[in-house]
């Protein structure tokens, strides 16, 4: 399957503003809430407090406390309410402050939301979005730093999106809200203040379209979420050293644009998958397997992975920073892999 209509990140141009990731998410939610009265937000501190990450600032002023609904600290409860409300005509957006709290809503996501459409023989739908976060290096310790997107990606019946830029954050959120399936959107906590170009007006990025963030010829970095910027930095360094790296962002784990990943792997012959989930049994393994399977006869080196270390995230800054892949590690690995060719 080719992807001729791929939605590509815009370059700076007339009508293209530079806004933060948080503003992009905020705009997406506001636009969809204006467009469809069935859309509402519920979660902890989403209204009066505007969320700890300030992503939702101002929404309650426009849409009121019914549609921007503060909940008690009751994750399983409000996630379950969202499933029920979605089954009967609403389009809830659940705000789950930290991805670590996925542990608390897994029954409602895995046993209820993901299975209702299938188990009802296609008669019922659960059009809900759960937005949550990933990412370490905020000195938040082991229970507020995990990147657990592999858990939800493993469950048939859920879609999973991982925006890495303001543009993608807006376009994927709007697509997720309009989707008739339960969609989990995982945002990198550290990227909320990052800025990027976002055109005025409507942006909807269909789930299942990868984006080539940088073109290259010697090696492919398949990078997700927080690791896209790491891959771009490594590519920059490598360019100065005469190596051309391509950076491909799948943007959604489910559905997965396997064609674009495989196409890039065939072109460069070398692939590193980089993802902030724990490396063992994570999405990096799945992405690596897709590439190995689809591009085997075009590969000049084994597909490599870089993930977070298999340790609980330590509080100690000196230790914490070692657990997440860095541009330096990726650069070194890429040089080693490309060196093997000469």
């Amino acid at each position: 399957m080719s992807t001729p209509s791929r939605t590509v990140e815009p370059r700076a141009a007339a009508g293209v503003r530079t806004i933060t990731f948080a503003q992009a998410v905020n705009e997406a939610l506001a636009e969809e809430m204006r467009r469809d009265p069935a859309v509402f937000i519920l979660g902890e501190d989403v209204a009066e407090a505007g969320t700890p990450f300030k992503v939702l600032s101002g929404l309650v002023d426009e849409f009121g406390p019914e549609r921007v609904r503060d909940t008690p600290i009751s994750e399983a409860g409000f996630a379950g309410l969202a499933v029920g409300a979605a089954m009967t005509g609403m389009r809830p957006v659940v705000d789950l402050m930290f991805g670590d709290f996925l542990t608390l809503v897994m029954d409602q996501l895995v046993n209820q939301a993901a299975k209702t459409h299938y188990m009802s023989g296609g008669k019922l739908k659960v059009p809900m979005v759960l937005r949550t976060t990933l990412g370490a290096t905020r000195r938040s310790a082991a229970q507020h730093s995990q990147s657990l997107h592999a858990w939800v990606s493993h469950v048939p019946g859920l879609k999973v999106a991982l925006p890495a830029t303001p543009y993608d954050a807006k376009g994927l959120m709007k697509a997720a809200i309009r989707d008739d399936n339960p969609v989990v959107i995982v945002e990198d906590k550290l990227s909320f203040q990052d800025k990027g170009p976002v055109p005025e007006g409507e942006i909807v990025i269909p789930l299942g379209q990868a984006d080539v963030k940088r073109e290259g010829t010697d090696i492919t970095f398949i990078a997700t979420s927080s690791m896209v910027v790491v891959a771009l930095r490594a590519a920059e360094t490598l360019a100065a050293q005469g190596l051309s790296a391509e950076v491909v962002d799948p943007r959604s784990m489910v559905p997965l644009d396997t064609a674009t990943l495989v196409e890039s792997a065939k072109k460069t012959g070398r692939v590193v998958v980089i993802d902030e989930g724990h490396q063992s049994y994570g999405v990096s393994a799945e992405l690596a397997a897709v590439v190995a399977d689809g591009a085997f006869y075009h590969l000049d080196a084994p597909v490599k992975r870089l993930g977070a270390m298999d340790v609980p995230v330590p509080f100690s800054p000196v230790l914490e920073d070692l657990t997440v892949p860095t541009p330096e590690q990726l650069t070194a690995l890429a040089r080693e892999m490309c060196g093997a060719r000469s």
Partner: protein
Amino acid sequence: MTPTDGLTREHGHELLLDMLRIRRMEERCAELYQKTKIRGFLHLYIGEEAVAVGAMRALTPDDAVVATYREHGHALIRGVSAEKIMAEMYGKQEGCSRGRGGSMHLYDAPTRFYGGNAIVGGGIPLAVGMALADKMQGRERVSACFFGDGAAAEGEFHESMNLAALWHLPVLFCCENNLYGMGTGIERAQSETRLALRAASYRMSAWDVDGMDVLAVEEATRRAAEAVRSGGGPHFLEFRTYRFRAHSMFDPELYRSKEEVAAWKERDPIELFRQRLRDAELLTDDEDAGLEALASDEVERAVAFAEAGTWEPVEDLERFVLSEPAPQREVAS
């Protein structure tokens, strides 16, 4: 016992017939299970029929119903046809869930029957969410949620009670307290065994009801449902009932004595009500036989329908994982 004063012959016959419809259908299910026509789990409601029959009468077609894995009776009385239920238990595509759900996952959109949930307590927040949707959309509907005493030990029970009461949502909690969560007695599972009292601590109206008395169930549910519908917030009914059969089909019942089961069978809701109708001269032998025949005929039609049903084509296995229709594949209406 609720007096039969004012009970019409027609109303009495409907209640008795509905209880018989569940009983006869499930007795047949047990036979079909022995013949391996029905496989997997099969949780029979026998003994508890008065609850579903009485409670459903207080609901309107616009209301929503969420139930548990012991939900054959609820589905039937809500209006899902016996044919579709039986075909579903067979796993045939003519079943109400296309054969995808089975005994524990009966779904039916037209009657607003939202399962059939095999996670204990898992359906409770769904019902509260449906009530939230109704409140937000200004619809005067009730979301009725059936669950067992076992669910009251789950965290989702607590979170749902709190949210429903906090937000004053139009949900009717129908707790079917049959005294056992699987094979563990309630006194070994709940620190406070008076579950209505527990519910009242969330500041919602709650009371217990004799779940073996179909008239008491109907009256209590009508009162509670009307209160919910008129903006009174969530209500909680604890129906004291008893299941006569095993938890599922394989259960040595080591956790309760034969004497205890026999004592509860003395209060069989069907026999109790039948006798009361006779005492009030509202039921003749011929009428009774006629009701039995109606129930039996319905079951036999359902079995014939399920037997004649077809398996879903294997190429449809991956349909409905996600809601988009698969490309180039026609979607049946």
